[in-house]
C-alpha cells in the first residue's frame, strides 16, 4: 500500500535509521503544512483549466447575446450576410465550414488509412521510417505556410490541371463541377485542409493498427487469407473504433482551421452548388471581418459565429475523445 501523508511508520523509520540526517528533512508539522499548501496549489492549477474553459464560453456567450436575442434561430438559417444592411445570416459560413471539412475528410481518410496500412503492414523499415518522419513534418508546418503555398502553387495548379478540365467535361452534367473554374474555391480549401489533417488521422490509425494483436493476424493468415484480406477483414475492423476517433479528431481540426483555408477558399458568402466556386467558412469570416466590424450588432453577430464554431468543434472533439477513450479502455491500458 502507498504510504499516506501522515504515515507515522515512514517518518519513524527515517528518524531511527538516519537521525543524523533528520535535520535535512522538514519536520513533521512543517511538512504537513507545506504539503497542504502544495496540495492546494497543485489543485488550483488543475482547476485553472475548467475555469478557463467556462470563462471562454461565458465571455463569448455574453458578447454574442445581443445577436442571439435579435436574430433568434434565423441566424443559422438565413443566407443573407449584409453588414451594411445589418442583416446577419450565418448559413453560408456554416455550410462552407461543414462542406469543406467533410470534403477534406473524404480525401484525407482514404489517404491516411492507406498510408497507415503501408507503414504498418507493408513497408520495409528503411522506407517506413523516413515516410513516417515526413508525415510528422507535415503536421509541424504552420498553417500560414500552407496558405502561402496554397495561394501561389496549389490554387493555380488546381485551376489549370483539375478544375478547368472538370468544368469542361463533367461541368455540364454534374452541377457539383459546374464552371467557371475560379481557382480560389471550396475545392482548393478542401484539398489544403486534407493535406493538413492527413498526418493526424494516419498517426492515430497507425497506432491502433499496431495495437491489433499478432494472433489475430496470424489466425487469418493461417486460414489462407492474403495479406490484404488479413489487413482489410481482420486488422481494420479490429482497429475501426480508433480509426473513427482519429477521423473525427481530424474533422475537428478541419472545422477550426483558419488562415490556410481563408487564403484559398475565395471568401464569398454564397452557398454555391459547385465545389469549383468560392465559399466562406466560419473561421474565415472571423479572421477577415472581426477587426473591421463596425457597430455592436455586427460585432455581436461575429461573436455568435465564434460561439457556433466553438460549439461545433467542441461537440466533435467530445465525440472523438469518448471514442478514443473507449478504445484505449478496451485495450486494457
Amino acid at each position: 500500500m502507498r504510504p499516506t501523508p501522515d504515515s507515522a511508520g515512514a517518518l519513524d523509520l527515517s528518524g531511527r535509521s538516519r537521525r543524523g540526517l533528520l535535520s535535512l528533512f522538514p519536520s513533521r508539522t512543517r511538512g504537513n503544512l507545506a504539503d497542504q499548501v502544495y496540495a492546494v496549489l497543485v489543485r488550483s492549477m488543475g482547476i485553472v483549466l475548467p475555469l478557463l474553459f467556462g470563462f471562454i464560453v461565458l465571455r463569448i456567450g455574453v458578447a454574442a447575446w445581443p445577436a442571439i436575442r435579435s436574430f433568434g434561430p434565423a441566424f443559422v438559417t438565413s443566407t443573407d450576410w449584409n453588414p451594411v444592411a445589418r442583416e446577419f445570416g450565418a448559413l453560408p459560413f456554416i455550410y462552407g465550414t461543414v462542406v469543406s471539412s467533410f470534403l477534406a475528410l473524404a480525401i484525407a481518410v482514404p489517404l491516411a488509412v492507406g498510408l497507415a496500412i503501408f507503414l504498418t503492414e507493408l513497408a520495409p523499415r528503411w522506407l517506413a521510417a523516413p515516410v513516417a518522419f515526413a508525415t510528422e513534418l507535415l503536421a509541424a508546418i504552420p498553417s500560414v505556410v500552407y496558405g502561402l503555398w496554397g495561394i501561389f502553387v496549389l490554387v493555380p495548379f488546381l485551376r489549370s490541371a483539375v478544375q478547368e478540365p472538370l468544368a469542361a467535361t463533367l461541368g455540364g452534367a454534374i452541377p457539383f463541377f459546374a464552371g467557371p473554374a475560379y481557382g480560389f474555391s471550396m475545392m482548393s480549401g478542401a484539398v489544403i485542409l486534407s493535406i493538413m489533417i492527413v498526418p493526424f488521422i494516419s498517426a492515430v490509425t497507425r497506432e491502433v493498427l499496431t495495437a491489433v494483436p499478432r494472433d489475430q493476424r496470424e489466425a487469418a493468415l493461417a486460414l489462407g487469407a492474403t495479406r490484404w484480406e488479413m489487413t482489410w477483414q481482420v486488422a481494420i475492423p479490429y482497429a475501426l473504433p480508433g480509426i473513427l476517433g482519429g477521423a473525427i479528431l481530424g474533422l475537428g481540426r478541419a472545422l477550426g482551421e483558419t488562415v490556410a483555408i481563408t487564403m484559398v477558399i475565395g471568401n464569398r458568402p454564397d452557398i454555391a452548388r459547385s465545389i469549383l466556386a468560392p465559399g466562406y467558412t466560419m473561421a474565415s469570416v472571423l479572421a477577415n471581418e472581426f477587426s473591421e466590424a463596425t457597430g455592436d450588432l455586427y460585432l455581436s453577430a461575429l461573436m455568435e459565429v465564434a460561439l457556433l464554431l466553438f460549439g461545433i468543434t467542441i461537440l466533435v472533439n467530445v465525440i472523438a475523445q469518448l471514442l478514443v477513450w473507449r478504445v484505449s479502455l478496451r485495450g486494457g491500458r
Partner: protein
Amino acid sequence: MMEESLLPMETKWNPGVPGIPAPTVGASHALPEGGKQVAAGAPFAVEARSFSFWYGANQALADISLTITTRQVTALIGPSGCGKSTFLRSINRMNDLIPNTRHEGELLLEGGSVYRPDQDVVLLRRRVGMVFQKSNPFPKSIFENVAYGPRVNRLVQGRRQLEGLVERSLRQAALWDEVKDRLEKSALGLSGGQQQRLCIARALAVSPHILLMDEPASALDPIATQKIEELIYELKDQYTIVIVTHNMQQAARVSDVTAFFYLGKLVEVGRTEEIFTNPKNDQTEAYITGRFG
C-alpha cells in the same frame, strides 16, 4: 534439480557430432538420404532436409532432418527456446511475418518445397491448419469465426452449403452441441476451452491436410485440456497432426511419434513409447524425466 542436470549435460553433450540420431521407427522415419522407400499410399506429410532457420543473427534451427508421417500425431517437445515452435511455424511459413529471417536446407510439404520462390503461401496455408497457444477467435460471432476460412477461400457457394460446413466443422471439434443454439453470439463469450475448440473448428473448416498445434492446451484447465486431447485422438484418423507441447504427459498421451528438440537441434525422434521408456540419448532422458527444462 537444475544443478544436477547441468553436469551430465555439459559432459555428454557433444555438438561436434551431428545431433541427429538414427531414426528409431523403421522405414517411415528413414533419413532423407534414404527417404525413397516411402510406403505406398503413405507419403510423408512433412519432410525436413538439413533445415536451418535464423532470426537475424540468431540461429533458431540447426540442420534439422525430420520426417512427419501422414495421419499420425507427432509431438515436438523440448525446453523453451529449443526451436520446436520455430519448426512448426516454418511449415506454414508463419515466420514470414517476422522481418529479417532466413533459412537453409529443404522443407517439403507433401513433397513440394515450402520455401520454393514461386510457392504461393496462401495455397500452402490452406493445406495447413493451425491452432495457436492462446485461443484467438476473431471478435465476431461463433458462426462467422468458423465461416471465415471457407468464405475467404470461396470454398462454398450459398448459405446452405456454408451452414453445412460450419456445422460439420463444429461437430468435428466436438463443440456443436454446446454452441448450436447460440451461433450468432460473440465468440468471445465462450470459455477458454470452448474458444480453443472453436479455433480448431475454424482451422478444420478449410479442410486442411495437416493440423499444426502450438501448445494448444497450455492456457487451459485440466478438464478443458482433456477435451482437447480427446479431440486430437479422434482427429488423427483424418488429419496429420503436429503438436508442440511443454507437457511431457500430454506428449505421451496423445502422440504416436515424439521428436525432442534442444538448442535448435533435433536430438532424438522415435515412437513415443520408446522415447519415453527407452530414450537413446542422454539429453532426451534428462528432459523427459524432468531433470531439466
